[in-house]
């Protein structure tokens, strides 16, 4: 199926497209110029030119200003929180996302379709709503907080609250990347392993896990990337104390509110570069996934 999509098989019956160029002759379907042209134009206007504005802005600040803005103790503390909390949240989602995907694909239980639909809730629910709702749950008088508080566990308005919010927004990523791969997994391989005497755990670790590893890591990287940029759900629950529970996107907003455009730009460039790197990593993982499932890229 993917072999079909990667190349247009030359059809002898259909006259070559009116454009006499060599490359175009292979394109049987009309509309290539129009759709590609529009795609590139719209992409440039909405995404590429605005993003390049950010880099041009950095050229107007000196290197020392730039370095000062991105390495002040308060900003460094925000990196630690943002990356640390995102990493923990993505790891939690790695484990539980795999579990949920596994349960949804392999087992039957009442309400399965509802659970399956609910997994996408963090995509559909606005982050601000998630933020105030999680805060209400975890605050001292909330449904969950009232039981945790007497035990000395405080989640709202602490870095731990940031992790909770980031777990919430990252839930769908691992589930939705692993689920289709598990569904397509050939049971014959498991049967073969079982007939050779492997236990369930051995089968899972040596047969199933290697097969789903690329999808698992892709989902993990996506959840991590999303968590790093997340703003709406976190600012309500974090308490936003400088040096303690202030995330990097909030630093940018704070600098903007003080009309420190240069400082905001510098920190934004750092975040943007991290996004680029993560995007490339995710792309690499997806290519690996396609190879792993035996399809040509």
């Amino acid at each position: 199926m993917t072999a079909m999509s990667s190349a247009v098989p030359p059809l002898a019956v259909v006259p070559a497209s009116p454009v006499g160029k060599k490359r175009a002759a292979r394109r049987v379907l009309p509309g290539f110029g129009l759709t590609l042209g529009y795609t590139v134009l719209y992409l440039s206007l909405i995404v590429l030119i605005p993003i390049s504005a950010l880099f041009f802005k950095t050229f107007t600040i000196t290197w020392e200003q730039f370095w000062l803005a991105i390495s002040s103790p308060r900003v460094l503390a925000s990196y630690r929180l943002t990356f640390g909390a995102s990493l923990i949240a993505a790891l939690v989602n790695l484990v539980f996302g795999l579990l949920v995907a596994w349960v949804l694909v392999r087992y039957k239980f009442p309400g399965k379709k509802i659970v399956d639909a609910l997994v996408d809730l963090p995509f559909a629910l606005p982050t601000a709503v998630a933020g105030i709702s999680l805060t209400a749950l975890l605050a001292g008088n909330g449904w969950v907080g009232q039981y945790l508080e007497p035990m000395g566990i405080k989640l709202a308005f602490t870095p731990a609250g940031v992790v909770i919010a980031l777990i919430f927004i990252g839930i769908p990523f691992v589930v939705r990347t692993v689920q289709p791969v598990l569904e397509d997994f050939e049971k014959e391989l498991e049967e073969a392993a079982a007939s050779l005497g492997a236990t369930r755990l051995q089968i899972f670790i040596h047969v199933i896990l290697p097969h789903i590893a690329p999808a698992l890591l892709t989902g993990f990287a996506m959840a991590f990337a999303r968590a790093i940029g997340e703003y709406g759900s976190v600012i309500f629950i974090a308490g936003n104390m400088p040096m303690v529970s202030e995330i990097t996107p909030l630093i940018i907003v704070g600098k903007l509110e003080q009309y420190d455009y240069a400082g905001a730009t510098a920190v934004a460039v750092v975040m943007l570069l991290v996004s680029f790197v993560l995007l490339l990593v995710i792309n690499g993982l997806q290519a690996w996934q396609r190879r792993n499932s035996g399809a040509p890229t």
Partner: protein
Amino acid sequence: MKQAHTLVASRASGDTLPLDVKEGAELARAAVTEARWVRYALITVALLFILLFLVLPLAAVFTEALRKGLGAYFDALKEPDAWSAIRLTLIAAAIAVPLNLVFGVAAAWAIAKYEFRGKAVLTTLVDLPFSVSPVVAGLIYVLIFGAQGWFGPWLMAHDIKIIFAVPGIVLATVFITFPFIARELIPLMQAQGNDEEQAALVLGATGWQTFWYVTLPNIKWGLIYGVILCNARAMGEFGAVSVVSGHIRGQTNTLPLHVEILYNEYQSVAAFAVASLLAILALVTLVIKSVAEWRHEAEMKAIAALPPERPTA
């Protein structure tokens, strides 16, 4: 395990199944699934996770909103500021979704139907807004259209306001929801290949006819799914819109921003009442999405069951 072994072996060699087929089938299943208690334990833990992280937050929105009864709930929604926030949210989505729909279809057509140099780069760039922090997305528009931005002085001279006004909010929303529909359509159209479109062209259809009668019916569920997710995100976007909005009550407040203002003013019931509208929107989104998915699966199954030749997709 031993019996399962023989069963698999006998199946492989084409022998007739042992007489106690039922028992054998159970053993075979036992070899490729977990013990009953493991299954139940895994299901329980997964459901607990879903309950704690998804169901509880959703339920909390509605209980907090109704904490002081239905009267207070509807009073919060009747407020003029809430109405202007609803209006602005609808405007932003009504502009952003069609724009990104046209783009999504065009991009998916170009990327899925043709081979060209730089295709991988283009696909990556389409994904870019997904990985950019919403705050950074808002900032880039401030840098272009803000008072100190590229076009700032020119806009000011012509008395056009983009930042801290409605156009800025629309632009930020378009950026944030940029890849949603394209991402949904590209893999779908790649999987379907070009065969049907080529057949239509051979039979004399024009390009538009081919798209309208052949491609569109094939991608309609994916299209609906993409549009509905794009819409949910457009109406719910907070970070990017927050940076460009300027938070002028009754003028540049979208629903999520209105939630924030009310919440920060300790009007908890009102904040959750407005939030409940967005939560209902999310639930409707999930229902439409699920129905679209089920219909798509049913259609796929019907196609797969068609004799005599199964499509390669």
